[in-house]
């Protein structure tokens, strides 16, 4: 790791060999395959989540536990001491 402040800092710049190769291989603006793979994986995960919600108890989402951080009203409190 470069520690001298006089030396060029390339740690956050796409200037090393790996980054150069990565971007040069991607010449052209066509959508790369990894983006498609990631999108398909995301859709599959979303489908699984929706199925779990539909087949589950259906209770989900913000505030499902009764008002959130400052609400103070939570369900089933009547049985609590």
């Amino acid at each position, binding site marked *: 790791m470069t520690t001298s402040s006089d030396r060029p800092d390339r740690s956050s710049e796409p200037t090393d060999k790996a980054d150069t190769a990565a971007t040069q291989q991607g010449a052209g603006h066509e959508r790369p395959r990894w983006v498609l793979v990631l999108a398909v994986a995301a859709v599959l995960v979303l489908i699984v989540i929706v199925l779990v919600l539909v087949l589950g108890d259906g209770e989900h989402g913000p505030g499902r536990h009764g*008002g959130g951080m400052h609400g103070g009203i939570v369900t089933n409190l009547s049985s609590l*001491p």
Partner: protein
Amino acid sequence: MFPPRVRKAALAVHLTVSVGWVGAAGAYVALAVAAARSDDAELTRGAWSAMELIGWYVLVPAAIATVFTGVLLALGTRWGLLRHYWVLVSLGLTVAATAVLLLHMPDVSALQARASRASASELETLGSDLGHSTLGLLLLLVILVLNVYKPRGWTRRGWRLQQEQPDRDPSTTRRA
């Protein structure tokens, strides 16, 4: 473009908060497992309290800081914000993870409040936070891998800008 010292400082902050977010998410998963699986009522209550504290005072600040410093770093370097698919996808996933976290944390607080007052038998029906935390951690790891490997791919906008201003091509331009 940021001068080298500013860029290095911004990168240091971004790495700190983003990797810290991943670490805290791992700790949160461990607590979620304890809260879901333990038969010890005190341990379960303690785990929920720790999850709420980590959530509000580590996860949320780290998530917001990660989005902020990531955008700053992208705009201040030759990578740009909308020029490469890996930057664009990372930004989208990070913003999505932050939004879900912010929407979910009030529920964690409510569950923690219930856990703190529930009897041992009621704690068993409290449910768990394993799903959110595990999916969240996996998402952060995907983002981390994207940022390390920087897979190839110009966006349409990035390609057009590169054609118009070839001197700004991050893959071929080296600073003196």
